[in-house]
């Protein structure tokens, strides 16, 4: 009885703990001490003001990509293309920020945010359109759109928009007016080196909006209905095709919003391969967060802490690199997918 009531919270927690156990076995296998590794992880991400700040900083893009994947799932779509969508959006935001020099921040900041959403949304909307029109599998198509996006932005940053006089693959810097403030500019007690910026607040706001759309509007109801059953929704007079395209557009839009904390708030330029898999981690974030905006925030914080902590692995351990986090993510997704296993164990084999 106890278990049934708290299942929503318990299952993800158990999945994470079980993944931690698998990670520990892997750490032992490469000849390091799991306790030491996990201590380094969390010491540097949760127990200092700076560490917490960095955890929030790393969690910010994950909230967006987690939200992107979760929104897709709610409509029965699996968007594995967040990584490509966010690259396209980041490049677009950088170009707008560079070339619309001279406008005031009141115009440029909202404009860049809209550009982030719309360009990411278009990149996500194309697979949505292909699905609605031709039944093309969105998983394969979003993967292909990822690979195309990587090539495209690489071409742009190596070729026409490469900043002169540097070997680093970056564009020019966006104008001052297109930048959003960092947290230390508003709160003086925050260390100046901390790159946490207002993008985090935007991310929380996006979660709130998503919640309101999905659970408090008729349109959100339609999207969730399509996610549960295409045929029933069609029968009820809901346009499945329209909702598929829209959901993929919005999903891609959320992924594109990663450009807000990363380009407008942190780097002020498009940096080649800056994301390093944020789009894929979004899958784990969404699944662990049970495709709910609140859960997405919690899961993103966990993975933010892991990302922050993983930076100290290379420094402290010869045999470990930050890729360990990728392993943990994979195991967590696997355990979340097989939650039936834990249900069985916890209910002591009794059929539910």
């Amino acid at each position, binding site marked *: 009885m106890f278990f049934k009531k708290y299942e929503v919270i318990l299952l993800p927690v158990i999945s994470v703990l079980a993944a931690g156990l698998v990670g520990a076995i892997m750490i032992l296998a*490469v000849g390091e001490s799991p306790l030491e590794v996990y201590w380094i992880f969390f010491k540097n991400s949760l127990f200092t003001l700076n560490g917490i700040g960095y955890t929030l900083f790393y969690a910010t893009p994950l909230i967006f990509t987690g939200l992107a994947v979760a929104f897709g799932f709610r409509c029965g779509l699996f968007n*594995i293309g967040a990584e490509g969508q966010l690259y396209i959006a980041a490049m677009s935001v950088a170009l707008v920020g560079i070339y619309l020099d001279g406008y005031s921040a009141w115009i440029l900041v909202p404009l860049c945010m809209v550009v982030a959403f719309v360009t990411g949304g278009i990149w996500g909307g194309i697979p949505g359109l292909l699905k609605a029109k031709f039944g093309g*599998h969105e*998983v394969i198509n979003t993967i292909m759109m990822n690979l*195309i996006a990587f090539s495209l932005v690489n071409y742009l940053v190596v070729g026409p928009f490469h900043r002169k006089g540097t070997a680093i693959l970056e564009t020019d810097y966006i104008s001052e007016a297109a930048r959003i403030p960092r947290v230390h500019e508003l709160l003086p007690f925050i260390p100046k080196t901390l790159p946490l910026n207002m993008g985090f607040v935007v991310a929380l706001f996006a979660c709130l909006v998503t919640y309101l759309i999905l659970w408090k509007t008729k349109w959100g109801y339609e999207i969730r209905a399509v996610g549960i059953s295409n045929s029933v929704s069609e029968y009820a007079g809901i346009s499945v095709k329209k909702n598929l395209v829209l959901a993929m557009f919005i999903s891609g839009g959320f992924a594109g919003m990663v450009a807000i904390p990363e380009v407008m708030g942190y780097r002020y330029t498009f940096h080649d391969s800056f994301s390093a898999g944020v789009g894929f981690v979004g899958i784990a974030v969404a699944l662990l967060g049970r495709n709910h905006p609140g859960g997405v925030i919690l899961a993103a914080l966990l993975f933010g802490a892991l990302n922050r902590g993983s930076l100290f692995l290379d420094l402290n351990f010869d045999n470990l690199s930050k890729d360990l986090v990728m392993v943990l*993510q994979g195991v967590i997704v696997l355990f979340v*997918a*097989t939650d039936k296993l834990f249900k069985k164990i916890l209910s002591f084999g009794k059929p539910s």
Partner: protein
Amino acid sequence: MWEILDLELVASGLRLSTPLILAALGGLFSERAGVVNIALDGIMIFGAFGGAVIAYETSNPWYGLIGAMMLGGMIAHIHGIASIRYQADQVVSGTAINLLAIGVPAVVANALYNSTTVTPNIKLILPIIKIPIISSIPYLDVLLGKYSVLVFFAFAMVPISWFVLYKTSFGLRLRSVGENPEAAATAGINVYLMRYYAVWISGILAGLGGAFLSIAHGSSYVNNISAGRGFIALAALIFGRYTPKLTLAGCLLFGIADAFQIRVQGVIPIPVQFVQMIPYILTMVVLAGLIGKAQVPAADGIPYEQMK
């Protein structure tokens, strides 16, 4: 630029079709039995990695090949446990495998060779077979002269797969659990076991496809070695309407597109990044249904719950 459209292009296309054929045939078995295998790409990466490591450590590419098959089968078994036994969403569990394929090779390579992205070069790759008479005939020698033993194996697997799936009782049972598992179970077929067999076969074949990249076509594992080929193989399978013959056609199409993409680089004045997009754009165009709707096995992707 027309000079690149020669027999060498076809030969290179046949080579690059090989990993696609192996993975796509793997997907064919799995999906025919009702298990969506989006993990093909990850399994290929594991196969490529395991094959390269074992071939390097033992200095024998054949051990690498066996290792890749076994590792592929084992990884596929994880997907099997999740999606057959615990009725997980098959796309999600496949994605978990793909995520693991990003992390695990990097962690292990780092522990073994102090590099997260490459393994050391192996001295000996899998043998390249020269067909005695053909390799002395002009033109034919370019087209059919010398290929890795795995190329021959992959092409031989197409009729073999067809025979197994359509002409044996094993194949009939395998397809029946992918079309109507309830009826199959009523007829006394162990649905879970058949699905496990299918997933194992798919893992072994995809592992071989990965091994081709690291110990036959290349001579080491490099980061992201599959370059999305597992997904392209799935597209070829859908293009092939889940039949061996048409799937082969799909793989050849993508393989030749890949070969074209490599050979055209630097020949025509288009940036290399755009040339590299060709196979990916082609995949999307093909999926958009130029050829008509795919005949998906009826129970594909639907978990089956065994009666107690």
